[in-house]
């Protein structure tokens, strides 16, 4: 139980490479914080700075109000689950989990060690495997042993470094819910590093999106999805990713590749003097006119569908378009930042599975212009971000988190009483 504060934390490697640039965040007691970003964004480095495996070049790291920059890892009282689990191959599962308890000679009695290891094994369903060696376990079991080793000790916080990236997709889903359940039950402050945005969205109370060592946005998953601060966050969060369409500003019209959208007076000052903007539209906000009733202010358009992918529960339709060369370079850069392949410019539409839209045919779509984001092509800033709505979402999710934590602690108290 503790809160962790990062104040202007920076990391410069010996070769001069600046991996983390002035990162600040407050992680509340019992909060589940996710660090997410494409590879090389400094998220793992940041986690290793918190746990003490990397030196901190600048800034302060505070745990419960105490500066811990210079403390050795063992004195920070944090527990960590490594990407490759880092189980001790020469020790049985029981001894692996008991390892942290045995380091302080004599401070914990053998009975206590046994009780705690058994509790952890119960919780992670490892009871039957306690005598086995890690080499004989499956990936998911190893993962659970690594978690057992982390929870067996009264650590102040859990740190996870991409713990699920070595598992196959099905197991990853199961372990994800398992981690969420465990964190809620223990009400433990947690920092979790991942490059997988599904994990980030589902697990986190709040998510920190990093790009090249710089924090882009720290917000609840819902705020990231609905009110992203810039192009990068908008493109990173969501699957399939948000469509970015170049749009020409003419009077009070935004001219998109397939249609024109008019905007109101209040929005005009934000695009004043700009000839080109980038419009962001999530694939799931575009609907098939043939099967859904449009709302009053919906914008309709027709487009040629190039490829469709039917997934059973939904249908992806791909609509290619020509991007304006002046925006193209910005979109290419964004694509590179997001680890993309620099593919053709196309719009993805996420339709209901019963849609009759087929490859090579012309189809009719509509979308609600209020769900559209407009980005400044130079700075990447979101011009349509609604600060009030964002604050409201933040307040709501903080409320949710506190309630969940409260509930977990009540249950824990009930269980031990």
């Amino acid at each position: 139980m503790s809160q962790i504060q990062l104040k202007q934390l920076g990391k410069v490697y010996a070769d001069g490479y600046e991996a983390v640039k002035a990162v600040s965040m407050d992680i509340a007691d019992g909060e589940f914080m996710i660090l997410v970003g494409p590879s090389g964004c400094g998220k793992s480095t940041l986690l290793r700075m918190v746990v003490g495996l990397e030196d901190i070049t600048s800034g302060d790291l505070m745990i419960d109000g105490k500066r811990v920059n210079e403390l050795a890892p063992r004195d920070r009282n944090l527990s960590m689950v490594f990407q490759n689990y880092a189980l001790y191959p020469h020790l049985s599962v029981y001894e692996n989990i008991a390892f942290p308890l045995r380091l302080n000679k004599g401070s914990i009695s053998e009975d206590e060690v046994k009780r705690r290891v058994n509790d952890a094994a119960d919780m992670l369903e490892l009871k039957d495997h306690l005598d086995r060696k890690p080499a004989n376990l499956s990936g998911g079991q190893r993962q659970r042993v690594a978690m057992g080793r982390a929870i067996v000790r009264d650590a102040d916080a859990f740190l996870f470094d991409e713990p699920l990236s070595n598992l196959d997709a099905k197991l990853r889903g199961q372990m994800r819910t398992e981690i969420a359940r465990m964190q809620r039950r223990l009400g433990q402050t947690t920092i979790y590093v991942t490059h997988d945005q599904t994990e980030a969205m589902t697990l986190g109370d709040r998510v920190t999106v990093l790009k090249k060592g710089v924090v882009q946005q720290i917000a609840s998953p819902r705020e990231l999805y609905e009110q992203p601060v810039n192009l990068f966050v908008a493109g990173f969060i969501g699957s399939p990713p948000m469509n970015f369409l170049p749009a020409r500003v003419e009077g009070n019209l935004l001219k998109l590749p397939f249609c024109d959208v008019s905007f109101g007076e209040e929005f005009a000052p934000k695009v004043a003097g700009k000839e080109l903007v980038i419009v962001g539209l999530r694939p799931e906000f575009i609907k098939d006119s043939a099967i859904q009733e449009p709302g009053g202010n919906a914008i309709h358009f027709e487009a040629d569908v190039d490829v469709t992918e039917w997934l059973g529960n939904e249908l992806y339709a791909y609509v290619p378009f020509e991007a304006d060369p002046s925006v193209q370079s910005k979109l290419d850069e964004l694509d590179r930042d997001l680890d993309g392949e620099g593919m053709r410019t196309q719009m993805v539409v996420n339709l209901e599975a019963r849609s009759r839209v087929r490859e090579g045919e012309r189809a009719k779509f509509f979308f609600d212009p209020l769900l559209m984001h407009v980005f400044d092509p130079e700075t990447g800033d979101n011009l349509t971000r609604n600060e009030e709505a964002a604050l409201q979402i933040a307040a709501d999710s903080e409320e949710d988190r506190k309630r969940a934590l409260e509930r977990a602690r009540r249950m824990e108290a009930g269980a031990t009483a």
Partner: protein
Amino acid sequence: MDATPKQKWSLFAVSIPVMLWTLIPLFWIFSLAVKPNSIQADGKYFPREFTWENFRLILTGGASDLFLPALWNSIIVCLAATIISVVLATFCAYAIARLDFPGKKMILLVALGVSFFPVISLVTPLFDTWRSVGLFDTIPGLIIPYLALTLPLAIWVLSAFFQQIPWEMEQAAQVDGATSWQAFRKVIVPLAAPGVFTTGIITFFTAWNDFVFAISLTSENARTVPAALAFFTGASQFEQPIGAISAAAVIVTIPVVILVLIFQKRIVAGLTSGAVKG
């Protein structure tokens, strides 16, 4: 590694000539040791008569005051050299594998260079030095050159082992609350155990079989078995002490065989664990 029965049998078939090739001289020595002296030179591989006379001679008889102290010296010198060498090499190899310090490559290269040095060229200067500092014919006087002889190899073998141990093991231990020493002792050393045993055995054999240092740096008090064998004499000047020497050779081979049998599994693990990752 799973081999099909066919592969197993063909491997077995190939290994028979190899085993024969190595066992014939060994059995020959044994055969010479149990032949009575009168038929030593009869040219027969299998002894027609059988006697323990040669063993009696070196263990309780006339040659025992030459052989038994030498055996004792050998054991002490080799065990001490092995233990010191393995401990020093473990620390040194760990530092080479884990720490970044200037001159790291230098140490490895110098170690390799030292082991290329012809041993015989060291003997004369060492002899002079040892005499003037009072190390001649003492047990430390033998242990020190054996350390010089075995440390380079030990450092090379062990640093290869340490390099295979993932960094995360140690970092995990540190995060779990271990001090550097605890992480080293409880995680790194057990993981490197096959390497430590392999190194230990190689070191022991090198010292156990050494003749050059043993014969030139000792006279009475610290003479080891290989050197002592050279001083065996026959009953008369016309008789060769072949039987006694063979019996002594058989006896000194026994600890080697026992060591290998005990640590067989670990040596095999040590020699193959480098080949396959994971």
